[in-house]
């Protein structure tokens, strides 16, 4: 009876399956094509070859000859990791302060900070560029990270998630003689592990993918990031598709790995403070 019922349900779901298969195909195909193209010669890619070829190594060698691939990869990792560590520390400390020590005035400050969410990046770009350049920080990791260390999004994410933090253990810790900062390091951080993980994933992804701001302050080739490297590769008069897609592949590998290994944290990071 139930079996018959369930097969009837599955039959009714056939249009759903077909729709989902089509959508999934469209979602995955461009990425498959990118990987396949990275293994083919440009002429074959242009001819419409969509299977894997034998030119991966050659494309890779051309890529390393034409660009400073390792330099850009190193830069991207450095900037993204430093930004993630510093942003998490600053924003989680603020989220902790706002939620667990909250009073009327702190709530007011919080709602003012939220207004920063409405400020478009292009609007602050010029004054920030002037600030960074007059401080002599152009083409340094500081130029990259300073404007995006403290974000309303991350502060809000930590604040909202702190709601579940057991306040009783703070009292107990105080009786044990722990300072407020010690409570943060020894109790808050371990309890909030999963929030840190989600925040780390989303911050790393954002830093790795950012393009407009690095384009403004990291003009020196030695300071350039992976997205800048592949954008330059594509801006030439003739484009070698094999080499370009090898570059795109290298730019995508770290984020793809994070996506497949930490998909749950990534999804939590995107939705952030939404409960």
């Amino acid at each position, binding site marked *: 009876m139930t079996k018959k019922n*369930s097969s009837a349900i599955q039959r009714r779901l056939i249009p*759903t399956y077909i729709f989902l298969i089509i959508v999934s195909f469209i979602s995955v195909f461009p990425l498959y094509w990118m990987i396949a193209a990275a293994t083919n010669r440009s002429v074959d890619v242009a001819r419409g070859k969509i299977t894997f070829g034998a030119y991966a190594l050659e494309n890779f060698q051309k890529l390393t000859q034409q660009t400073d691939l390792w330099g850009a990869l190193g830069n991207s990792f450095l900037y993204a990791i430093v930004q993630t560590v510093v942003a998490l520390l600053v924003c989680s400390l603020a989220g902790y302060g706002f939620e667990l*020590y*909250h009073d009327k005035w702190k709530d007011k400050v919080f709602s003012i900070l939220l207004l920063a969410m409405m400020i478009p990046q292009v609007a602050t770009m*010029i004054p920030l560029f002037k600030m960074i350049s007059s401080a002599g920080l152009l083409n340094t990791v500081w130029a990259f990270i300073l404007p995006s260390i403290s974000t*309303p999004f991350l502060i809000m994410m930590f604040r909202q998630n702190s709601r579940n933090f057991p306040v009783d253990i703070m009292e107990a810790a105080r009786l044990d003689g722990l300072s407020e900062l010690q409570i943060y390091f020894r109790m808050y951080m371990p309890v909030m592990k999963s929030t840190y993980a989600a925040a780390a994933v989303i911050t790393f992804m954002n830093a790795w993918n950012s393009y407009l701001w690095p384009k403004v302050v990291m003009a020196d080739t030695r300071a350039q990031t992976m997205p800048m490297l592949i954008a330059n590769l594509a801006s030439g008069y003739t484009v070698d598709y094999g080499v370009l897609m090898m570059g*795109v592949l290298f730019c995508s590998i770290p984020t793809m790995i994070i996506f497949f290994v930490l998909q749950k944290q990534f999804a939590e990071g*995107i939705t952030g403070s939404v409960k």
Partner: protein
Amino acid sequence: MSKQKKSLNIQGKQQRAGWVFLAPAAIMIAVFSFYPMVQAFITSFTTGTGVNQRMAEPLFYNYTRMFADRTFLRSVGNTFLYLAIEVPIMLVLAILLAQLLNNRDLKFRGLFRTMVFLPCATSLVSYALIFKSLFAVDGLINTIFVNLGIFESNYNFLGNTGSARAIIIIALIWRWTGYNMVFYLAGLQNIEYSVYEAAKIDGANGWKTFWKITVPLLMPTIVMTVIMSINGTLQLFDESVNLTQGGPAYSTITMSHYIYNNAFGLGVGKFGYASAMSFFIFILVAILSAISMKVGDNRD
């Protein structure tokens, strides 16, 4: 009495500790968001470049100039075109997918979800370049269409206004649908599954369930994704720069791209003019966010 005073002292100390904890973040937002915003507003009343920056004559010169600048008006038009077409299609598709994937009778749910979500794993520059290559004159889409006999010869998708705009929209939908779906899936998980079971027993079909249960209960999430999408679309940059270079003849350029070109593109930096245009975007974002929030409130 003294005990009470002491506990007040401790509380005061704790409150001060709270201020110390939030100070670095608050100061950084003030220095790197609010202060530059004020600076941008002031700069928007200046003209000249580099060290020759001076107050504009008349003061609102950059603002009047902006509305006579055809390329700027085109960039505003383009951005709103993307907004009007892309955002509704993407959000409807995202809700639909979330609704379909929330069905517990469905097999391979996790696999489908992962695949629909996958485009989010690529950087904006990466996917812009992938789409640029796919739709190039000698790209895969042309090869397929010519071989199928749909086109007689290769079509220059990115060299023609209509198709270039369509490709930006298609690319945006591809990249962001799964992203928005994640919000809706999270929202749907908060709705008791039994509500759906009950609706089914009452004989409500999928369509009715969707409109009577899913949409009203997801309203806060929908409002939020609408605001985020508007905000994101008004600031589009990477796609315009890397997919079409704003072309042909500025017919796909976005506001952010045009502002960037004026400030840091070829030639001298027109910081005053660029700041005026960027302030215009700020006003737009603020107004549209306020409207979306208002609409969301009324529905509650």
